[in-house]
């Protein structure tokens, strides 16, 4: 309780409030720009926070996360282009409404659904994260190892790509994490005699490369694709009847989104798809879905925004990212010398609650921005990409350089960008690679500690109940969908638009 109050007091700092408001506007801008999304925005902004104290630095990153996730709906509704992949399902009903001149109703329902979903998930985060941390406090290395393996296995279902390719990409990230001095034996591995690599491949330039530079190349490859002009009509807000019609959907999708967010690696995109499908399944008018259903917008938006709070639960309580963007925030926590995990709620509880309150504040803030600023933010889509992307590139490169002030990091960012681009071309998501790179070190250290603890008899890990539980969950995560799909012929899942 004290920590919650102290966290709230930390937020009372006017300087921090101004930063959060600015970051909310920046996040909405990032989310509204097609090609940029929450993950890229957080990765690009991370180097700018290095000189700040941890509370404002991480508050800014989480603010960008929440605001950008919401803002994807603005362009999804107004120009049929989801600003983020989590808003892909919002296009299905938002754009038809905009075409009928009812963009205001769609934006209003999206803003209300996002705000309520976000607030519910932050309340769950405040309650669940300390409980999860307390449960994990007595985890020994074998339990941590099994938990990390489970977290990595969840990468299989990221996006709409092949699960095998996702796992392969994650394993590649784990392999990259072995570069540098082995922490257990102090022996150099894969460094090729370069001192810069002795501490391993740095996270931040890789994140900037795979999310920022690779997207620049994707944009170059798609330069011929014609962009639809913005529909700008008078914005009329939703009526009370509209809200009455969608409140059950909002609550249901908020629950779904929070739960999906808590699962390691599953983020807002998966949440919005499931939220949308469930909204349709429970609707009295399923035939309206795809033709401008307010319930469809509410189902998608409440779910994707509630996933942001949910995703922060395992990130802060266990050190296992709950979504791709949470993985970048996790890297940010590490860069600031913080240790995400159970001890965060005993040693840095004030910090954790300051972050929770800042997320709550952002969710309320973007309600107003969403309702009354959408028209202005929709105009940012008019910025020509031949002006936007060179500027993004400058920020990417200087951001990659700034952390260690090393040109090696610039090379790593460009290299990661080119590798990431080709991975994406061939259907390998770059998100598992990024998460594998972050979790790889932890995975190896826990395995080594477990081997010492169990006298090198690794199979004894399966005799510990919690480890066994996580291993069983891993098997279910990897093979469950295949078995389920064979047993019960499923409908084809909705396709997401990218990462």
């Amino acid at each position, binding site marked *: 309780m004290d920590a919650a109050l102290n966290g709230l007091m930390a937020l009372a700092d006017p300087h921090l409030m101004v930063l959060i408001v600015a970051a909310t506007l920046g996040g909405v801008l990032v989310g509204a720009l097609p090609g940029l999304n929450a993950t890229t925005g957080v990765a690009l902004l991370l180097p700018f926070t*290095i000189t700040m104290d941890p509370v404002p630095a991480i508050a800014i990153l989480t603010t960008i996360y929440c605001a950008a996730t919401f803002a994807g709906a603005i362009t999804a509704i107004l120009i049929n282009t989801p600003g983020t992949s989590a808003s892909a399902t919002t296009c299905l009903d938002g754009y038809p409404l905009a075409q009928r001149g009812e963009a205001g109703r769609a934006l209003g329902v999206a803003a209300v659904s996002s705000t309520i979903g976000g607030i519910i998930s932050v309340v769950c985060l405040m309650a669940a994260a300390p409980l999860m941390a307390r449960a994990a406090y007595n985890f020994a290395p074998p339990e941590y190892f099994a938990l990390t393996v489970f977290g990595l296995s969840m990468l*299989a279902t990221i996006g*709409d*790509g*092949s*699960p*095998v*390719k996702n*796992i*392969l990409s994650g*394993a590649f990230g*784990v*392999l990259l994490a072995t570069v540098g001095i*082995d922490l*257990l*034996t102090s*022996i150099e*591995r*894969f460094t090729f005699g370069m001192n810069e690599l002795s501490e391993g491949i740095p996270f931040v330039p890789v994140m900037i490369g795979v999310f920022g*530079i690779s997207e*620049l*190349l994707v944009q*170059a*490859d798609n*330069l*011929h694709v014609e962009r639809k002009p913005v529909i700008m009509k008078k914005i009329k807000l939703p009526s009370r009847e509209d809200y009455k019609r969608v409140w059950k959907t909002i609550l249901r999708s908020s629950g779904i989104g929070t739960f999906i967010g808590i699962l390691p690696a599953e983020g807002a995109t998966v949440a919005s798809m499931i939220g949308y499908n469930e909204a349709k399944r429970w609707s009295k008018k399923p035939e309206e879905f795809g033709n401008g259903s307010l319930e469809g917008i509410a189902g998608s938006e409440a779910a994707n925004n509630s996933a942001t709070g949910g995703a922060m639960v395992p990130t802060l309580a266990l050190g296992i990212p709950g979504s791709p963007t949470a993985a970048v925030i996790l890297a940010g926590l590490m860069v600031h010398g913080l240790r995400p995990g159970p001890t965060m709620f005993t040693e840095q509880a004030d910090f954790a609650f300051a972050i929770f309150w800042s997320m709550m504040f952002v969710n309320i803030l973007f309600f107003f921005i969403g309702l009354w600023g959408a028209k202005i933010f929709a105009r940012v889509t008019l910025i*020509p*990409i*031949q*002006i936007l992307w*060179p*500027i993004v*590139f*400058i*920020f990417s*490169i*200087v951001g990659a*350089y*700034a952390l260690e*002030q090393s*040109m090696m990091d*610039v090379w790593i960012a*460009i290299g990661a*960008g*080119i590798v990431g*681009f080709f991975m994406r071309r*061939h259907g390998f998501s770059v998100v598992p690679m990024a998460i594998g790179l972050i979790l790889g070190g932890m995975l*190896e250290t826990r*395995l*080594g*500690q*477990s*081997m*010492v603890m169990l006298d*090198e008899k690794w199979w004894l890990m399966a005799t510990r109940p919690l480890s066994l539980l996580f291993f069983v969950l891993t098997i279910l995560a*990897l093979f469950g*969908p*295949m078995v389920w*799909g064979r047993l019960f012929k499923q409908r*084809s899942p909705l396709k997401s638009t990218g990462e």
Partner: protein
Amino acid sequence: MHAEEHSSSPPARRHISNVAVPLGIVAFCVWAFWLSTQFDRVPPILKRGMQPSDFPQLVIGLIILLAVWLMFRDKSEAPARLSKMAQVTMGLLVGFLLIAEVDLFLGLALFSASLATLWGERRVWAIVLVGLISPIAVFFLFDGIFEVRFPRGLLTNLWYG
């Protein structure tokens, strides 16, 4: 492992990249495995659970296994031909890296202006904005506010003295 079935639409045509990509991954893994055999080893008395090469070799083994699986089961569509624009943009990136070794600021300015022009920008003010004003603004933002010093080079020396 279920999406392969979904992604393979009925007349699934195997493309050369379905084999070439996994083969490339296996070749990379073989090289990485060989590198891992060159790591120093610790004497058994100092060994803390694992030798330094054990974990990387375990991961490499998993990657090879998955790549071989892909080689025989992946029926996903081959990507469209890489556009000329993407190829030239990639060339510009390489050019940027070379110029950045001489001066990072110069590299950023030249790359940004070239990219904007390559992507079809013809308005002079826009090219000046991305090729001159933006790099200068970012330079002073980092130098003045974040206290990040750019590496010394041809142009940055004029400022740093």
